[in-house]
């Protein structure tokens, strides 16, 4: 493989990784924008999403064959299931604390994360689970001297479609308008007759459904699942959200893609042993020089 091909490969890996970060970061950013909660359990929602996909895939592959159709079924089920799980989490664990000090809410989120994480550890006995399908991961289309695999291409397309539809949803529909309104001023929204709790529930549902899509993609892309995978992905996605400007939807998309690319380049240049450090170093540099992120609002609000 020539050097150019290696770099192309790494850039594509970076884009795919960036799609993961972006999809998860969207959930962080939306929830943060609307109730100022750092939803610690979000990484675990992603992890659960991938296990749900695997579970459904196991059953669906018997009926429709273990190809893309079964993955699609798994993905849709995971989206709905994880959306509902997140909705109930916010209903029963977070909602009683919306008016409490923010530290209490954050600690509750850590508690939820511990429950999700340990429950999966118990369910899987702490073992790796493998995704076996008929999908040919090596097949791809040739672009000049480079090859882009179908798996990566499909993932990038799915991510792009989801992001465009989310943007349309936020900017063009009445629910999206309500979300933007709540992010600005919750009480005024109440006075305007918006059912704030319902919109918060909807936000959790959408954010978690997106994380579940990332989970489904992890199933196909990595092939091996572990209950531990949500933790590091969660904090990196949060880093991506901060880089983009927390609370900003396009910021989360941009931040995710950028972090993925930076990590791919960093891995190529410095080595993979240090790859988890990049994200945090970038985070700290970002906080020093541009704490509002690339697309965040300029006000510095204090807790």
């Amino acid at each position, binding site marked *: 493989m020539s050097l150019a091909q290696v770099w192309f490969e790494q850039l594509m890996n970076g884009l795919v990784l960036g799609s993961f970060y972006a999809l998860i970061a969207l959930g962080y950013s939306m929830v943060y924008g609307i109730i100022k909660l*750092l939803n610690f359990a979000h990484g675990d929602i992603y992890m659960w999403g991938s296990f749900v996909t695997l579970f459904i895939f196991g059953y669906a592959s018997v009926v429709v064959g273990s190809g893309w159709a079964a993955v699609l079924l798994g993905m849709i089920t995971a989206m709905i299931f994880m959306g509902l799980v997140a909705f109930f989490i916010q209903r029963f*664990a977070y909602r009683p604390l919306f008016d409490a*000090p923010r530290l209490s809410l954050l*600690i509750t989120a850590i*508690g939820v994360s*511990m429950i999700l994480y340990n429950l999966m550890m118990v369910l899987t006995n702490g073992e790796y689970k493998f995704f076996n399908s008929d999908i040919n991961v090596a097949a791809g289309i040739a672009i000049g001297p480079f090859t882009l695999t179908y798996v990566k291409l499909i993932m990038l397309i799915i991510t792009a479609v989801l992001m465009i539809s989310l943007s349309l949803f936020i900017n063009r529909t009445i629910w999206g308008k309500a979300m933007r309104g709540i992010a600005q001023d919750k009480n005024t929204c109440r006075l305007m007759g918006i059912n704030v709790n319902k919109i918060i529930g909807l936000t959790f549902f959408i954010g978690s459904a997106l994380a579940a899509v990332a989970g489904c993609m992890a199933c196909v892309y990595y092939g091996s699942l572990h209950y531990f995978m949500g933790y590091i992905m969660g904090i990196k996605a949060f880093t991506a959200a*901060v880089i983009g400007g927390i609370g900003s939807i396009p910021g989360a998309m941009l931040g995710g893609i950028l972090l993925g690319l930076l990590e791919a380049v960093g891995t190529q240049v410095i080595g993979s042993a240090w790859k988890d450090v990049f994200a*945090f170093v970038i985070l700290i540099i970002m906080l020093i020089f541009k704490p509002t992120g690339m697309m965040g609002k300029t006000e510095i609000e204090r807790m």
Partner: protein
Amino acid sequence: MDNRKNGAAVAAENVKTTGFFGHLINGLYAFTDKPAGKIVVYGGLLLIWLSAPLWTSTYVQEVLWNCMFYMLLAIGCNIIVGFCGLCDLGYAAKFAVGAYVTAVLIKTLHVSFWLTIPASIGASMLAACIIGGPALRLRSDYLAIVTLGFGEITRIVARNLAITGKAQGIGSIPRPELFGMQITKIWMWFYVFTVLVVLFVFVASNIKNSRFGRALEYIREDEDAAEAMGVDVVKYKLWAFITGTIFGGVAGSFWVVKMTSITPMAFQFLQSANILLAVVLGGMGKIPGVMAGAAFFTIFPEIFREIGDMRMLFFGLLLIIVMIFRPQGLWPERRR
């Protein structure tokens, strides 16, 4: 006995209580507020505690030692989380800094253990400034994520550097000497850590009652009001963060010479979470409260070894329930 009864009566007049435990706790408060009660309670407890190595097994002493170690960490973490209301999710990294500084200095430069403590304090201060400096100017939840990130960085760096022994860590660290005697037996460590706990409690309670401590309390209760009254919020937050980190670093230094070996695995997120939970469940801000929390977190797993993996599941549930129904913790500070 008489004291206790009076105490309960006085408490019942002052504070509206509900239930058996409410009365019991208020009674205990009132009893321990009296000088005679204080002497009886604390003297008795001290005597039981100091004689523990005489009538307990090595296993129990190990558990008690571990318990004291977590108490040290909880007291340090309490300065950041309890006094100042910041959220620190990487406290394990702070004791990792102290532990690695001590271990590396002893192994490579053959420095005496006692001389590594100032170095460990210095390294802790430096780490706190690097992490806290940029993050504390911002919203407090950024600090949560930065401390979390710092926890991971510390672990990854320790796993990749040759000087910290990579993934195997550092082993066979010689034990320190005190009064010409090497501290090897567990009962010796028991007394060393007892002294440390007393020292930490002394320093922490002095901080709490000082001008600095009151400023922190003000920041925790109402940051904007504190700023309006002329409290330099960022400066005080940073000092609280540095102080808490130093406590963690010193505790780590002592921990590593007791354990004689160290690996990056010892500083996983779970450790940080446990320390934070001890502080939060015990009662943020109250020193005996967080010590009780730390004791609970070390003794509970020892007693419930059978449930094994399910343990953390229940911890998570407990945490949510406590946050919803008793956000101030199980043994909180009484507000003046």
